[in-house]
């Protein structure tokens, strides 16, 4: 039943030949990236507010891709997998692009004040700052009058009154022993002000940047070590490096899990600083896993089309990674439903704002919510259900592309409702050219790095001791 996948005599090198279109693909990505950066730079000055959100959306999407690659690599080492060895290098390429996000983070760090309402507390001149950034960008003028902003600021309740009260430690007083809050005129205002006041030390400009530095340090080190070891093994062969990678992987997974979680909290959850969900980090992890697996499928399929990797990756591998993609779609739906169902069922206002904004908040977000559910879970669940579908490569490629597009929408759904927020649970939806510009800028730069790395190293880990198992893998 075993079939000789390798012809005897000429061992393939799994390198991209100089005449392959893949040899220059990175230049195309870099070109697109340059165009995107140029357009974004224009946008940054013409509409700083929108630019910041568009950039964050693109950043979080491609970051998920890089982290998804890292996760695939770690999973391979944790399980001592044989089947996935030929696919691992593609994931390693995605992972090796992670350091570039440190640079891509700069626009977010610079424009933090546009993104995160919790920063408004610090700047005394918040009002003008906000108006200036926001108002300038609204050529369209869809009812974004100043009144809306005023309301926005006060509704969220991060006003100057927050500083007024003496500092007290809310940990050691039972809520019922508190005296009533007289600082603001409505209970909701008071509640929000108090909530925000109690976590200012965590949601703090400096500490936010320090934490970002820690996450990047973690990811850069993980990417660096796992990529260097793996590529060094291409030449050295042997078992020592595999042993080292398998020894390091469990600890690396700890680092990966916590850094990803807190990055998701910091960069996305704190867009609505009064809202919280314990599962939020897990949801971002699920998204990263989906995006990572979908892109690995698409990249390897595309390379096979141009004749690369044909000896290494067969329908058997696609069948297996298709199963994993299917599994992660279900997992993502599961954790998303967990969050939704519990918030919906309990109906606590401070939590339900999140879904209220995306359902009743206006601007057509309800439609996107429906699309994300149907196109993100229901349809791909059936697209990838059958064994025959997963083994039909064009079908699998279509499904992976479909899923990827929906996940772009999912990230948009997570980030962008806050871009046009006009009240606590009111927002608008309009596609802006900057969304595309930022997407190309971040994606172009990141993919240029990934594709450039592909030209420098073999496309499969040729030194891996389990490679042969991987090459002869068959699903039974």
């Amino acid at each position, binding site marked *: 039943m075993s079939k000789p996948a390798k012809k005897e005599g000429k061992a393939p090198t799994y390198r991209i030949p100089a005449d392959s279109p893949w040899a220059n693909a990175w230049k195309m990505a870099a070109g697109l990236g340059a165009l995107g950066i140029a357009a974004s730079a224009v946008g940054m000055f013409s509409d700083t507010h929108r630019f910041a959100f568009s950039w964050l959306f693109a950043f979080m999407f491609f970051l998920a891709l890089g982290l998804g690659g890292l996760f695939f690599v770690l999973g391979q080492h944790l399980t001592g997998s044989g089947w996935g060895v030929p696919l691992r290098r593609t994931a390693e390429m995605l992972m090796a692009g992670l350091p570039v996000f440190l640079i891509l983070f700069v626009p977010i760090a610079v424009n933090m004040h546009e993104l995160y309402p919790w920063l408004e507390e610090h700047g005394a001149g918040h009002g003008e700052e906000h108006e200036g950034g926001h108002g300038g960008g609204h050529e369209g003028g869809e009812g974004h009058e100043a009144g809306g902003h005023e309301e926005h600021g006060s509704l969220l309740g991060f006003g100057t009154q927050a500083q007024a009260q003496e500092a007290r430690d809310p940990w050691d007083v039972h809520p019922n022993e508190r005296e009533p809050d007289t600082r603001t005129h409505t209970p909701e205002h008071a509640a929000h002000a108090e909530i925000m006041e*109690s976590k200012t030390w965590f949601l703090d400009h400096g500490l936010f940047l320090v934490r970002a530095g820690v996450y990047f340090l973690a990811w850069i080190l993980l990417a660096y070590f796992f990529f260097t070891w793996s590529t060094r093994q291409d030449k050295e062969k042997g078992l020592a490096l595999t042993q080292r990678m398998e020894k390091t992987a469990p600890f690396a997974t700890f680092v990966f899990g916590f850094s990803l*979680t807190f990055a998701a909290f910091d960069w996305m959850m704190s867009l609505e600083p009064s809202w*919280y*969900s*314990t599962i939020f980090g897990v949801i971002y992890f699920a998204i990263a896993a989906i995006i990572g697996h979908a892109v690995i499928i698409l990249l390897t399929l595309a390379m096979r089309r141009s004749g690369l990797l044909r000896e290494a990756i067969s329908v058997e591998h696609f069948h297996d990674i298709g*199963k994993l993609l299917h599994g992660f779609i279900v997992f993502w739906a599961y954790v998303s439903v967990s969050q939704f169902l519990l918030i919906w069922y309990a109906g606590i206002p401070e939590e339900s704002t999140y879904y209220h904004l995306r359902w009743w908040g206006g601007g057509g977000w309800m439609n996107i919510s429906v699309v994300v559910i149907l196109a993100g879970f229901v349809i791909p669940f059936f697209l990838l259900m059958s064994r025959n579908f997963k083994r039909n490569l064009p079908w699998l490629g279509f499904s992976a592309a479909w899923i990827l597009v929906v996940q772009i929408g999912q990230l948009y759904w997570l980030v962008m409702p806050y871009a046009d927020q006009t009240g606590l649970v009111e927002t608008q939806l309009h596609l802006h050219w900057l969304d595309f510009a930022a997407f190309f800028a971040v994606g172009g730069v990141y993919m240029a790095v990934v594709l450039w790395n592909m030209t420098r190293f073999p496309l499969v880990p040729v030194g891996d001791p389990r490679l*042969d*198992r991987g090459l002869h893998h068959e699903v039974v």
Partner: protein
Amino acid sequence: MGWRKPMEQLDEQYLVSEGTSLADVTEIVSKVTEQKAPRLWWILFGISTAVTGILGLTIAYLLWTGIGIWGNNSPVAWAWDITNFVWWIGIGHAGTLISAVLYLFRQYWRTAINRFSEAMTIFAVICALMFPTIHAGRPWFLYFSLPIPNQMNMWPNFKSPLLWDVFAVSTYFTVSLLFWYVGLVPDFATLRDRATNKIRKWAYGFVALGWRGSNRHWSNYERAYLILAALSTPLVLSVHSVVSFDFATSVEPGWHTTIFPPYFVAGAVFSGFAMVMTLLIIARTVYGMHDLIRIRHLELMNKIMLTTGSLVGYAYAMEFFIAWYSGNPYERFVFINRAMGDYWWAYWSMITCNVISPQFFWFKKLRTNIPFMFVISIVINVGMWFERFVIIVTSLHHDYLPSAWGNFSPTVFDVLTYCGSLGLFFTAFLLFLRWFPMIAIAEVKMVMPQADPHLGHHGHDDHDEDEDAMTAEPAMAEE
């Protein structure tokens, strides 16, 4: 199933001790049911039947008197009973995980332990179901919870997670039972064929459903097994998710948090593996199963415990962090109260047993040390009981209204019902060990090198360096 020469430097091993033949496997497993039970079995069986008897008396008294004989009282209306329910359901999870999820992930080492843990699942779910049944107060009206058409126009409340529990757990029980039974059929046939007396022959023949081991039987069997595995996999997630909804859909601080479903599932798998480990080590030693259940199997189980224990630790950390981050004073209070309030000892027992103790398994020395892992597995079971206790009792005993605060203390009947459920579980389990093939004979044979049709052709004796070992042809051992 595939078989390859293991790379020992990469911690790979034969799943069955080298030199064990196919006939040995049959012999090792079957003889347990054919010989007289060892003295230890009788001692344990005597104890556990006695304890089960006490359980029967306790329940009889309880039903006669009312559940007021338990310590549950406002504000702690759920206490040991629901703690025990969740604990037992959680323990049941390892069975399905090992038999279904690890099967789909092609983790062949599962074959040595799946039968064992599936049996454990069935008995654990039975023990679990006992508690809500009693707690509902009038077990003879239990059918009220089912949507049966009736002339009273009475319908269950479909919006209640407690009802979802009824559906989730009963589905889980049914599918687990089917899965277990389907796997048992070929092995029952083996016992039937080895039977030396009429009764045995007839009894095992009856449950073997006329299995002849023909090609068609095997191919139907494989298909059924795969379908049941695919059906069981979502159940691994759904059951404990629904159990977590019992708490998390409320507006109770400490209960209402969005990470509960996956966190409960991780905890369930964690405790299930710990229980399998406890039982497995005893059975392996008493019945001399060392050739089939190797240290490697135990080590891999310990790794899963380390993983799930750490996931549980992650969930604790998230709960605590978000309780603070939420800014919600009630949330904050509940968590501070957990760690520093009246039940601080329960909280710290939970942290020590569940988060700290599995961390020892980072060290290979410790995760291959049998007495050590035995102790840790019991510690984890204790810790997971405390986890449910902490969640249930500490959230209820000091919630919104200080005037309604109150502590919980168990009565002797709480203790008797809990210990009684252990008696019931062990009685059933000991009977299983005595009469059922405790290891899946047919499945273990599939992962042995002898099952490889290419054995002896190549890959086995022409390996003078690693490179050659790697080029061993992939082996398919189907049919």
